[in-house]
């Protein structure tokens, strides 16, 4: 919101009033309902509360000054460098296309959904006052207050239980389970409560929860802060699993997830937070894959960081005359069978690139779908995933452990011989 603040009508009979005190300084963000100034009217001194979110620009009527009803008293908006203004800034631009990083895309989605629907609440460990351990959520607490955005004890069982209970009682909780590895602690409420309730109530009571979690390796976080939990939950009917690769999808899918009426696990790869991209604010429907690069010779199906690796591999392969198509699944459950099958019917070769142990992974599920639906079109199909072992800490060990662009390109070249 940009423009100006005018002298509000603070009493029925007032014609003018005096500003006794400004409670915000130029450049300071304010949220709807926050006190902006103390104003003396003909009847009393009242606190003037903001009617929208914004950033205070220049003060036009200083303390002690008088203005007539409707006269401008301050401007709103303008250049603000303070980090606290991040949310307010975001909201100035969120409507149109703009270039932001993945982290900001997540925050914009949360901000816009919190603003859009009063039933949305957001909680987790260090998400409110501290703004998140990966600095994804600063400013939300300041904007929406502690009733809707709050910090919790380090208690994943309680977090997930609170999400379930509040969701079936009319709220739309978004919960951050800091690292995906900690989902093991929250699993009971997710698997035995949240995913079952829609069914058990005969589709009468929805369970609108989003569990956000940071996942993935490559950050030198070791065996227990680097895992990819998608496959642990792939076989649980009643939940959806979302795995975005770009800022636009992160924002569009998170908005869709928050609006979805049943539980969604929303995974954010820690190596993608700094990735930039154009974002237009469109909601992206869950369960739709996207062909991010067209090609004729082979289909590379992947998700999250794998999409960036696959595109890099496809670039390298183009130099060898191999035209690779890259399909970003975006949602692992439900799988977009149609897009998968259409691509394989075109290229007749399939490699699925998964960050995660090869045994029991989602790549196997993708292969199964393609075999069931497009066996006749298939000349080759295989998986590139991580070995069946825990993720090592040491940089050379971890780098060798993960499938990267070189390995993807090399395997595709080898299989063509």
């Amino acid at each position: 919101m940009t423009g100006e603040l005018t002298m509000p009508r603070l009493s029925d009979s007032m014609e003018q009033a005096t500003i006794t005190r400004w409670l915000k300084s130029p450049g300071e963000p304010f949220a709807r309902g926050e006190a902006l100034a103390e104003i003396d009217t003909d009847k009393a001194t009242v606190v003037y509360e903001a009617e929208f979110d914004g950033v205070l620009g220049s003060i036009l009527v200083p303390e002690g000054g008088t203005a007539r009803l409707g006269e401008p008293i301050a401007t709103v908006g303008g250049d603000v460098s303070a980090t606290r203004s991040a949310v307010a800034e975001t909201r100035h631009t969120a409507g149109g296309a703009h270039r932001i990083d993945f982290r900001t895309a997540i925050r914009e989605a949360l901000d816009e959904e919190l603003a859009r629907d009063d039933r949305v609440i957001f909680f987790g460990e260090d998400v409110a006052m501290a703004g998140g351990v990966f600095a994804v959520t600063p400013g939300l607490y300041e904007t929406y207050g502690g009733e809707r955005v709050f910090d919790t004890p380090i208690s994943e069982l309680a977090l997930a239980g609170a999400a379930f209970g509040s969701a079936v009682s009319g709220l739309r909780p978004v919960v951050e389970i800091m690292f995906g590895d900690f989902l093991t602690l929250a699993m009971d409420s997710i698997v035995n409560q949240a995913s079952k309730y829609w069914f058990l109530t005969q589709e009468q009571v929805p369970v609108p929860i989003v569990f956000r979690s940071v996942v993935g390796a490559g950050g030198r976080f070791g065996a227990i802060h680097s895992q990819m939990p998608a496959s642990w939950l792939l076989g649980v009917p009643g939940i959806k699993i979302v795995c975005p690769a770009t800022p636009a999808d992160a924002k569009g899918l998170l908005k869709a997830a928050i609006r979805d009426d049943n539980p969604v696990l929303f995974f954010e790869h820690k190596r993608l937070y700094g990735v930039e991209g154009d974002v237009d604010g469109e909601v992206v429907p869950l369960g739709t894959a996207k062909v991010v690069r067209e090609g004729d010779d082979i289909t590379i199906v992947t998700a999250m960081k794998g999409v960036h690796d696959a595109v890099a591999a496809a670039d390298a392969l183009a130099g060898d005359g191999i035209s690779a198509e890259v399909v970003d699944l975006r949602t692992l459950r439900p799988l977009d069978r149609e897009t998968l099958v259409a691509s394989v019917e075109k290229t007749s070769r399939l490699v699925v690139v998964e960050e995660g142990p090869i045994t029991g992974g989602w790549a196997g599920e993708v292969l199964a779908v393609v075999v069931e639906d497009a066996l006749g079109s298939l000349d080759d199909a295989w998986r590139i995933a991580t070995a069946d072992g825990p993720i090592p800490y040491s940089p050379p060990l971890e780098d060798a452990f993960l499938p990267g662009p070189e390995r993807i390109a090399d395997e595709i070249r080898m299989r063509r011989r």
Partner: protein
Amino acid sequence: MSRAATELAGDRLEDDELYLGLYRRMLLIRGFEDLVQSLFLQGEVYGTTHLYSGQEAVATGVASVLDERDRGCATYRGHGHALALGVDPQKLLDEMLGRATGINGGRAGSMNVNSPADRLIGCFGIVGGSIAAATGVALALKRVGGVAVAYFGDGAVNQGYFFECLNFCQVLRLPVVLVCENNGYGEYTPFEVVTAGPIRARAEAMDVPAQTVDGMSVWEVRAAAARAVAHARAGAGPAFVEAITYRFVGHSRSDPGRYRPEGELDRWRQRDPILVLRGRLQSEGVDSELLDGIDRDVARELEEMRDRGLAAPWPEPSRSPEFA
């Protein structure tokens, strides 16, 4: 609240009509459980059941102080809580029988019943799950002045859910009433063997007000619940009630209860909550004929319920929805 307080201080129940209603409700729960047991033995109720017989005063006493804004989260031993909150007994029975007319269309069975319209968020099949659910329900009810009640057994106080949620509710001042039904046994194990220290001390350690009451006396449960609900509704955070009770049957259908010491069950049966309330009502001058009439009415209702339930249609498999 004030009535409950005078009731404890005084010699008379505050309202005979009210207690006649509670008497009827407790009889219904007992009769329902007997019926479920007999239908189970005949192969009409499947899987397993966990019966509430002996603990009726707890669910009935707590439910008697709740209002329309409040919600309950119960355990897999949840038939009594469902009936106490007002779930239609026919629909509950039909659910046990797996029929389309069941409260959840036959999808839930004995352990997973829910009926939000009756204020029962659900019965949860994992020990401690009810506490988790109530924590979140309270988060939502805080907006409307409601209170969430978590029912759980003594076994649940050793689960992570109990500690995490108790602390979570206290620091966020959530309107939760935690009702621990201490029936002496976690499944087949005496609770003292697996539980360090007194149960209520766990709540007291977190400055959560705690009461221990005779769970075989519906008026004592009612008074304690009224105090706890008032505390929670006032915005002061959770309150804890430990009700000392006893189950007259095994843990589940596969458990004959042989681990109990000789004579223990008989001693507790002398404190049967239905007989305790009946005796109290009689001592206050309620006509035995009136009470006998209620006994006969409930028995007849259950008989009819049984016949209707066994004649009810089965659900169509095709009506199960596809999941994402």
